């Protein structure tokens, strides 16, 4: 019922659980345990995709992670759609919907295949040589055309509906790969008592043993042995088993990235489960047991559907119980293909012939094949294939010593199996920066000297015989545990029987075929359509480094990252340049081993989990009042409080007026606060700030300016001296962490002798600013134990007492130019005190105001905002803060820098005020300032507008600006060039309101 190509028995599929799915809209059936690939093969479908460049029809090539051809889009809707999914890794589930890619209108008939006909004009790197004329046509025509032809699948068009999770984990020994080597390694390490994690990409542990039908281990069938091993590991508390989990990247210090698929194999994923889990594992020791990959043969027309890796065909037969074809030609240089041929034959697939490139293949497997009646043809190559959407026949020829082809004959077949040898999976080893070594005998790179606390085991380090692989796995697992500080593993041997072991043999590069090599298409990189002749062309054009060959031809750059192609490409380059492979080197292995979802990297992070949303204790109140908020760093601050029908302008105008006329209330809780305590606190303050602090009396406040060592303004804020040895420092909202780190740096590393300690108190205090002529009247009834009279509590003073019955540090301070207080109360009381003040202020029509109004009010007074007037290039004098620099002080951070000549120049940008002729004209912040508006670009620019607002109290717009030599230009008219016009502005002093400070001292 599940397809004509399903074997009557065998395989690890559950025949009791039929599953239906669709591919390109057509309904098929498979079984639980199938992959999408095996289920389609069971239905006789091999045509699976179209290639990237030539749109050639392509079949399923492999049975695993290395699949280059069979990529599909999977997903029932756009919110669950994933492009470029390898059919060979997609487990079947009921209702799975898959569609082919990169074809139009259909997989069978693809208009894009015209590229294949035109392929002679599209050799490697063709686009560098053409599409240059006419120049404009590139953007308008060529590039869009190229783009629409390129790309494989389609990106989803809707936001992903799934969730992702992340986990950090630690272990003593991480084993990557759960084949025989990995299982044995994990067992050895686990027995030592070490904490072990074992990750395997497949849904089941066992690796290559899942397709093993002959071998026995300790007298058990391979698969029973696997089951026992897994059960033994599962039973141990010190082992974590992760299936469907890929180790995708090896990062410095033995940190390994794993990606675990949790629901992609489920028809109805439960809502509580994330789709994938992303693991960052810190491992004491790592054992890589990632196995090996089979290499294709490079021969003419080797890409027709029906051409398949030999061992993959064996996996389809043994593991999935499906027949990839009916009659096969085998092309090999390697014994593994004989094993495949034998197993296929046993399953009823006719083996038309084994063409072996080797002239004298020998050994037990070869003998077994002959004994089974298979036609073994030594020194023979496949020199071509025929068939449109599936192989119909293969041409075989004997290869002479000179590479010529003789005795060509055509053999009918619907399957061509190939095997050029095995390539150990050294991806992760190489990512760890371990040095690879070329093994001449294997014709493959194997791990050499490790760079991390890592060791490789089994096939991934070039071992082949199962007995050797298991023994090695156990030994490496034990060694790893020992290096991690665990010992006492009982020695163990594993008796392997029933398999024919032989010297495997191998071949690299393009097989000889006797045809015109410059005309035939012998594919090296299937997905990216790179042929042997493309690679030769590249070397001819001077691209001799393997890295250049890769980039010029794109070989190895497809979604399979050259798993099946890189070694053959190397062989071809080696031959073309007549240089040995080790001399040519390899391209760099990079993470991920196979592609990993962006979502897994992002994890839970989205929306409010993307970054913390920091809110003040009063935030809830503001939200209830309908405040508009702005993001300031990661804080949310109330921007303004619109009343019904008001836009920002109207709201701000009203808020400003309220503060100037009566009283406003403002949440200043986000200001950074640092408690500086200790005998040497004043000395420390002297060194960190430009100001002098020694003489500041307890109970008084001072505005402080802080520089970086290179002299530029870093932060500012009001500082209260609470006691001789205690300062309450405030910083800008965004600057708080930076300032604390800056202070700690100097304290810990330069002035460790000072008896001073810092504590961040930003979040201890809610800060409620009450500003305006009626401010005192509003708070007076709420305050206990503090004399608020101007004499007792003048501007820039601080007192400790109670408000609303809770402790407060009450600052008399003003950033508005009005009489004002900043009430510091312990944060949990913030909202209640705010509400009490608000209630008390009702009589004065107290008005909540936001950051925008705060900005306007301070600009009217010419107070700077660090980060707005200053931009990291200003020294104190530039922004009119020369007065805050303690000239008498011998040293402070940044002092040596600002005395350099550069900072004395009169034409530095200096802060000034600007007034427009037209009162209602509000300049744009960031607008430029010039003397001559008529000059052509590039203009000589004098400066820029840093702050600009409509000032309702003045009935005039105001602006602050940084202007070259600005202080000497007071009274001059300059211009702000805007598109189509220039706005004249008068340079004025940067204080627009209450210059004498009468109100503030009121």
């Amino acid at each position, binding site marked *: 019922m599940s397809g004509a190509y399903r074997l009557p028995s065998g395989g690890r599929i559950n025949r009791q659980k039929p599953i239906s799915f669709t591919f390109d809209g057509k309904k098929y059936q498979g079984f639980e345990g199938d992959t999408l690939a095996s289920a389609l093969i069971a239905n006789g479908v091999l045509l699976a995709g179209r290639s990237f460049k030539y749109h050639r029809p392509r079949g399923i090539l492999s049975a695993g992670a290395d699949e280059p051809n069979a990529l599909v889009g999977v997903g029932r809707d756009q919110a669950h759609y994933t492009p470029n999914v390898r059919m060979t890794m997609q487990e079947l589930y009921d209702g799975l919907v898959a569609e082919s890619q990169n074809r139009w209108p259909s997989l069978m008939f693809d208009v894009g295949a015209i590229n294949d006909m035109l392929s002679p004009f599209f050799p490697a790197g063709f686009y560098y040589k053409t599409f240059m004329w006419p120049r404009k046509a590139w953007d308008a025509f060529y590039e869009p055309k190229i783009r629409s032809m390129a790309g494989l699948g389609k990106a989803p068009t809707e936001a992903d509906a799934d969730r992702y999770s992340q986990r950090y984990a630690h272990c003593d020994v991480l084993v990557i790969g759960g084949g025989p080597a990995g299982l044995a390694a994990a067992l050895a390490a686990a027995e030592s008592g070490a904490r072990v994690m074992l990750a395997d990409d497949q849904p089941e542990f066992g690796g290559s043993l899942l397709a093993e039908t002959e071998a026995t281990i300790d007298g058990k069938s391979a698969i029973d042995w696997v089951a026992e091993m897994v059960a033994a590991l599962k039973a141990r508390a010190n082992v974590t088993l992760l299936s469907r989990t890929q180790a995708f*990247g090896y990062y410095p210090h033995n940190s390994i990235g794993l990606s675990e698929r949790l629901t992609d194999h489920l028809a109805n994923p439960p809502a509580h489960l994330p789709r994938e889990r992303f693991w960052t594992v810190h491992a004491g020791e790592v054992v890589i047991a990632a196995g090996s990959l089979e290499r294709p043969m490079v021969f003419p027309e080797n890409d027709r559907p029906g051409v398949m890796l030999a061992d993959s065909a064996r996996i389809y037969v043994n593991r999935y119980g499906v027949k990839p074809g009916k009659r096969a030609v085998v092309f090999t240089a390697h014994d593994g293909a004989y094993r495949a041929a034998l197993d296929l034959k046993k399953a009823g697939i006719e083996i038309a012939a084994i063409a072996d490139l080797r002239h004298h293949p020998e050994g037990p497997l070869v003998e077994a094949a002959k004994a089974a009646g298979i036609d073994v043809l030594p020194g023979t190559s496949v020199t071509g294939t025929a068939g449109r959407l599936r192989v119909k026949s293969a041409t075989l020829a004997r290869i002479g010593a000179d590479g010529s082809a003789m005795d060509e004959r055509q053999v009918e077949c619907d399957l061509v199996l190939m095997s050029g040898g095995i390539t150990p999976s050294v991806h992760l080893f190489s990512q760890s920066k371990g040095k690879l070594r070329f093994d001449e005998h294997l014709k493959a790179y194997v791990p050499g000297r490790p760079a991390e606390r890592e060791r490789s085991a089994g096939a991934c380090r070039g071992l082949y015989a199962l007995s050797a692989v298991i023994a090695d796995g156990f030994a490496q697992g034990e060694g790893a545990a020992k290096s991690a500080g665990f010992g006492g593993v009982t020695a163990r041997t594993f008796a392997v029987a029933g398999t024919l072991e032989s010297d495997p043999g191998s071949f690299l590069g393009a097989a000889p075929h006797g045809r015109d090599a410059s005309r035939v298409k012998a594919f090296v990189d299937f997905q990216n359509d790179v042929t042997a002749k493309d690679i030769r062309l590249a070397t001819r054009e001077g691209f001799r480094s393997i890295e250049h060959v890769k980039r010029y031809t794109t070989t190895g750059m497809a979604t399979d990252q050259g798993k099946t192609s890189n070694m053959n490409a190397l062989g071809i380059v080696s031959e073309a340049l007549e240089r040995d492979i080790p001399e040519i080197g390899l391209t760099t292995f990079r993470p991920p081993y196979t592609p990993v979802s962006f979502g897994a990297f992002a994890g839970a992070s989205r929306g409010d989990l993307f970054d913390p949303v920091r809110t003040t204790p009063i935030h809830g109140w503001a939200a209830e009042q309908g405040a508009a908020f702005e993001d300031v760093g990661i804080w949310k601050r109330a921007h303004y409080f619109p009343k019904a029908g008001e836009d920002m302008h109207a709201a701000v105008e009203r808020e400003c007026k309220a503060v100037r006329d009566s009283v406003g209330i403002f949440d200043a809780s986000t200001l950074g606060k640092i408690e500086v305590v200790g005998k040497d606190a004043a000395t420390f303050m002297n060194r960190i700030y430009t100001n002098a602090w020694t003489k500041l009396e307890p109970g008084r406040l001072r505005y402080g300016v802080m520089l970086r060592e290179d002299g530029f303004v870093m932060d500012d804020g009001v500082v209260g001296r609470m006691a001789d040895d205690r300062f309450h420092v405030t910083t800008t909202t965004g600057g708080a962490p930076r300032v604390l780190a800056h202070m700690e740096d100097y304290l810990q590393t330069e002035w460790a002798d000072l008896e001073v300690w810092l504590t961040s108190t930003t979040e201890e205090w809610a800060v409620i600013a009450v500003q305006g002529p009626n401010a005192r009247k509003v708070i007076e009834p709420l305050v206990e134990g503090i004399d608020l009279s101007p004499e007792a509590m003048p501007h820039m003073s601080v007192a400790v007492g109670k408000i609303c019955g809770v402790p407060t540090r009450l600052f008399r301070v003003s950033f508005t130019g009005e009489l004002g207080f900043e009430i510091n109360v312990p944060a949990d009381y913030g909202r209640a005190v705010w509400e009490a003040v608000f209630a008390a202020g009702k009589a004065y029509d107290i008005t909540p105001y936001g950051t925008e109004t705060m900005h306007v009010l301070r600009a009217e007074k010419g107070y700077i905002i660090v980060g707005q007037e200053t931009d990291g290039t200003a020294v104190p004098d530039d922004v009119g803060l020369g007065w805050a620099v303690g000239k008498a002080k011998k040293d402070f951070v940044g002092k040596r820098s600002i005395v350099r000549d550069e900072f004395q120049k009169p034409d530095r940008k200096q802060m000034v005020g600007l007034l427009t002729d037209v009162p209602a004209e509000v300049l744009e912040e960031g607008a430029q300032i010039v003397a001559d508006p008529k000059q052509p670009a590039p203009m000589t620019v004098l400066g820029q507008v840093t702050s600009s607002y409509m000032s309702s109290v003045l009935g005039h717009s105001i602006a602050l600006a940084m202007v070259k030599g600005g202080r000497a230009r007071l009274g001059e008219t300059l211009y702000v060039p805007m598109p189509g016009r220039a706005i004249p502005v008068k340079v004025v002093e940067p204080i627009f309101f209450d210059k004498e400070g009468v109100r503030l001292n009121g």
Partner: protein
Amino acid sequence: MQKFSGFGLIARAFGAHKSWQAQWRDPEPKQSYDAVIVGGGGHGLGAAYYLAKEHGMRNIAVLEKGWIGGGNTGRNTTIIRSNYLFDESAALYDHAVKLWEGLSQDLNYNTMFSQRGVLMLAHNIHDIQSFKRHVHANRANGVDNEWLTPEEVKEFCPAINVGGKDMRYPILGGALQRRGGTARHDAVAWGFARAADALGVDIIQNCEVTAIRRDASGAVEAVETTRGTIKTKKVGVSAAGHTSMVLDMAGVRMPLESYPLQALVSEPVKPAFNCVVMSNTIHAYISQSDKGEMVIGAGTDAYTSYSQRGALHIATHTLDAICELVPMFRRLRMLRMWGGIVDVTPDRSPILGKTPVKGLYVNCGWGTGGFKATPGAGNLLAWTIAKDEPHPINAPFTLERFREGRLIDEAAAAAVAH
């Protein structure tokens, strides 16, 4: 030099492409050259090309320790723009963009310069202020840059999520430079190499400079390399991440630190992202290449390193930002991630000019953003070497500015990278 054209391609197709010649020679190093460029990245190759083309110096060599283009030229996210804030920077980068605009034709090599537009997103009021300042400053400098409202952002780049309640930092607007875009990084190195080679420049790969010899007066007289000693009186160093070490060979200490900077690509998909988008606030840089991958810039690691790789958590932070900006890309998958080594100056602006050693010129400190400058930097380095004085455009980018405090601090001014 064989001329590249569509007709040539078709004609050679009939000869099975057998008659294509090497795009550059593979010469043995000569005993001496009039000038030697250290570093076969785009900048170094560009310098050699312009020295030969515009200053008539033909007896020159480019020495590359590995393969040309194998440094940052071959591993960057290819963002090209010139909408920098300060006059000096805008002039420098716009000089390059103007050269980009005719580069394919000039080199007879399709560098796939694609003026798809570079859009920088504003997520808060500070961003708006900063970007508007850029827009105005650029306009005054004759550099195109325009402000887009959120609606215009959405229209220009439909793939991005501009707002809504589900977004942590909704998009409040953007600054768009339409002349900005991308180019095919490798082709830039190869195109310059081929054109320089045609003018007689020796491009010598697998040749690492190991020492710089100076005569009694202190002036440069030769470089030692892994392929022997080469005499020369002019050495231009364009070694990106390795500049500190090369300059150290001549006793010059540099205000440079080398950091790993990572980038990554997705699997290729059909066109789904039509421009270049940068968000400095949430650290995301993305464009789609001609081949279909999403090319995404990650951040630098925290520490200096020469390892050409980086940590995993850097990529996670980049991709959470990308997923926030384009939620439908969550199911795209990362195909490859890699690192480069970028040399960073204290003010994040390059150093391009003379050094205290006679005959030694340096072009470095491009940090995370020098690909866009490639033809311009090469052009100006060539000028500086040929005339022994900087061109007015690179005159402000001296080494001395750090002593004097005359920084050109784009980063401090706006926190802008790339």
